[in-house]
């Protein structure tokens, strides 16, 4: 097991290195550099040149690459051109926000999707199944930003139940009497709509995956055996079918993570949620290489690592799999 994990980690490192290099090449190939885009008539060409030299953008590409690798290996990723701060610092400020929103959303939708998928498969062909499947299909295929806009329009604007965007309200955070729980509650209050958006988009896919996996499982002979043994239907479903059926779902969660992150970035953008996804979109539009590279690396690392974790978890959960 340890050998397997180490091997996978080594693979992850190699892949990360490749991504790192490709990112570097892409950003250097792109026309225009961060200094060129400062179109301020007050900036003279001499000043631009000086700034380029100071930012090290005039160095030979190999030197830049080595510096870049050094920066990445220390986890610092250099300085953000836009913020003028160490990239690591910028990212650490936004990362918890993304983790809070995204992890909660994925967990919540996985939980609901899996348990509803279980029920839908169990009642295949009945009204419950039809309603759940159609609901899953429809919400799963909704266009995320549009759904987000719609939710804002209805719940924040028309009904005024929730704040329109943002993550916290200044009233609460500037109130010296507000304790930790008040602040936490405030964040969660702001989180309701983005969370709902992500949840609606994601739970459908988990539901559908779980449903089909469960249907496969239900065809197995051990389900018939369980029934023959006189087990209650509920026990057959929960003790025999579900534990087998949710294993493939675990893998699919891992594999779909990269795609979910697209949705995460869109959600963060629409709701002005100060997270990594929004930061990446912003950094990209600002040609802030170091920041965009670091955000990208972070996302790739997270996806890669969660795939490793999922694989190891799978091996751990399923007694049949031994590497």
């Amino acid at each position, binding site marked *: 097991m340890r050998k397997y994990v180490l091997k996978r980690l080594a693979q992850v490192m190699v892949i990360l290195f490749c991504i790192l290099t490709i990112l570097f090449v892409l950003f250097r190939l*792109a026309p225009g550099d961060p200094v060129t885009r400062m179109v301020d008539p007050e900036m003279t060409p001499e000043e631009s040149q000086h700034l380029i030299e100071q930012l090290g953008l005039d160095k030979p590409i190999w030197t830049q690459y080595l510096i870049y690798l050094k920066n990445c290996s220390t986890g610092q990723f250099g300085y953000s051109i836009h913020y003028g701060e160490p990239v690591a610092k910028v990212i650490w400020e936004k990362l918890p926000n993304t983790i809070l929103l995204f992890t909660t959303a994925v967990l919540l939708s996985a939980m609901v999707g899996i348990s509803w998928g279980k029920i839908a498969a169990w009642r295949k062909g009945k009204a419950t199944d039809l309603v759940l499947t159609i609901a899953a299909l429809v919400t799963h295929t909704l266009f995320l930003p549009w759904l987000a806009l719609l939710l804002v329009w209805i719940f924040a604007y028309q009904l005024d139940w929730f704040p329109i965007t943002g993550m916290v309200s200044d009233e609460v955070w500037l109130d010296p009497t507000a304790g930790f729980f008040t602040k936490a509650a405030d964040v969660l209050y702001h989180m309701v709509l983005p969370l709902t958006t992500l949840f609606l988009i994601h739970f459908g896919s988990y539901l559908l995956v779980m449903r089909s996996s469960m249907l496969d499982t239900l065809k197995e002979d051990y389900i018939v055996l369980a029934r023959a043994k006189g087990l209650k239907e509920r026990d057959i479903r929960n003790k025999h079918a579900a534990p087998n059926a949710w294993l493939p779902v675990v893998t699919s969660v891992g594999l779909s993570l990269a795609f979910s992150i697209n949705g995460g970035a869109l959600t963060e953008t629409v709701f002005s949620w100060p997270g990594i996804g929004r930061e990446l979109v912003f950094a990209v539009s600002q040609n802030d290489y170091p920041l965009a590279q670091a955000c990208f690396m972070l996302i790739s690392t997270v996806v890669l690592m969660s795939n490793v974790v999922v694989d190891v978890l799978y091996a751990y959960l399923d007694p049949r799999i031994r590497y």
Partner: protein
Amino acid sequence: MARHYKFACFTCKVVAAALLAVVLFGLAPASQAASNGMLKVGVLEEPKSLNLWLASDAWSNRVLSMIYQPLFVREPKDSKLVPWLAAGEPVYDAGKMTYTLKLRPAKWSDGTDFTAEDVVFTGKIIKEFKIPRQSSKFSFIEDIVAVDKHTVRFELKRPKAIFLTRTLTTPIVQKKQWEKVVAEARKSEKPLSALLRQAVDHPVGTGPFMLAQWKKGVFVYMKANPYFFGKGQVIEGYKMGPYIKGIIFKVFGTADAAVLALRKGSIDFYWNSIQAGYLDQLKGDSDIKLFVSKKSGLYYLGFNLRKAPFDDMALRQAVATIIDKEFIIKRILQGYGEVLYSVIPPGNTFYYNPDVPKYGYGMNHDQRIKKAYEILKAAGYSWEVPPVNGQGQVQKAKDIRLPDGDPMKEFVILTPPADYDPHRAMSGQLIQEWLRAMGMPAVSRPMAFGALIQKVKGQHDFDCFILGYGKLSLDPGYLRSFFHSAMNKANGWNMSGYESAAYDALATESNNAMDLNLRRKMIMELQKIVMTAVPYIPLYNPTIIEGVRVDRFTGWVQMLDGIGNIWSFCDIKPK
């Protein structure tokens, strides 16, 4: 196995229950007490940095302009420069080429005195580190001397018009706060980049407000500065406050959220120009007052004069004739903008020359085409199907040919993409259609901003482009930058490649003229020259529409570039 599954289910249920509980708890109304007497300002983005030397963006400036103050500022009525940290007009010694300036007694927000040393320090580090955007304002200054605690003397190498308008409006930083930083930066291999990368968490300034708290991505909270030098004083007829306890800049990612927040009362002022689409709703709201202000902006179509076909002045003039700027303003800006005929916007009343060639002024579509047809025909252009037929009627033209008989090759109008600025992208589309009606093979292509600048400014590899400046300096020094042949180089500001010896001489002279009226005359002349050669076709200058709530604060001061200015913030009072 089943155990794992059960455990996972259980964990999820606990998480869900906890979330639900906290969400319900959170629905309880938040306390409003803390924000009484605070002005809440909505902004789209947060400041990129509080390091004055790095922060060049509009959003940082909104915050930093409350903190760092210059010696002179523009007053609201006529946009004239008035003493701010300075105690009076500078005294010029023509012989020695020095300016001597008295400073107001003022204090930094940490309570220490503001002295001539600070001014000297600021000037010196700008010169030393060649700080972008600032160093050109100081390059002609030989030395800055602190005569005494409240007197400072600038010694110039040569006369320079921007000394008064630009150098003296540079914000002053505190020597005490920056000294150490600068010393460290000097030691490093790349002093400038070390300086720019310096995190400034608590900027110390002389302005009416000081930073209290910055929650990244959410808000910037500024308290009133108890040491503000202007407090209680009357400057230019305004009795200075600030009368409010503080300002909270709330960051909204998108305009619609900010406008909604304004309507719902969670902000008092949205410090950004409101798009026309929102106006109908806002106009109907009695709690909201709209201010429509002029802006010092320039949006233009530029040509590449270095190569065919736009090296031909007649063609450029014809294009200028065809473009219906009124239509652009009516449609794309939905009426909120003014037509530009000169490269200096009319809002800059002192330098604006209303008497330049106005191509196509007052003409309708057919007249424009006929006029352009005349110009081009006279210059030797021909068509497969001319835009005007034998009966003098306008028709769809086909395949224009250059005077030498070659067909005109397809040319591209580069514009910024729609997400960056929809107005410019769409103007490009409209212009493309108009030019095609003349038989010109125009293609409008939006291009990412960085790439566009690289092509136009860096490589000079383009035909036409549409760019613009939202906040053009009131000092017309840019006329030299834009069209002087010395600036016709890679990354130079003369992107069109316009070259004229007469213009060069006059522009240089105007920039060195210390006499305002003389300079004004020269600037007028320069505008005329430019608008005859039309390397740029000025298109429009949008107006700024800003909205405030009237239920909590009054006393907004309107000036060029809107009500978001230091005078407003020093002057508004709670109701």
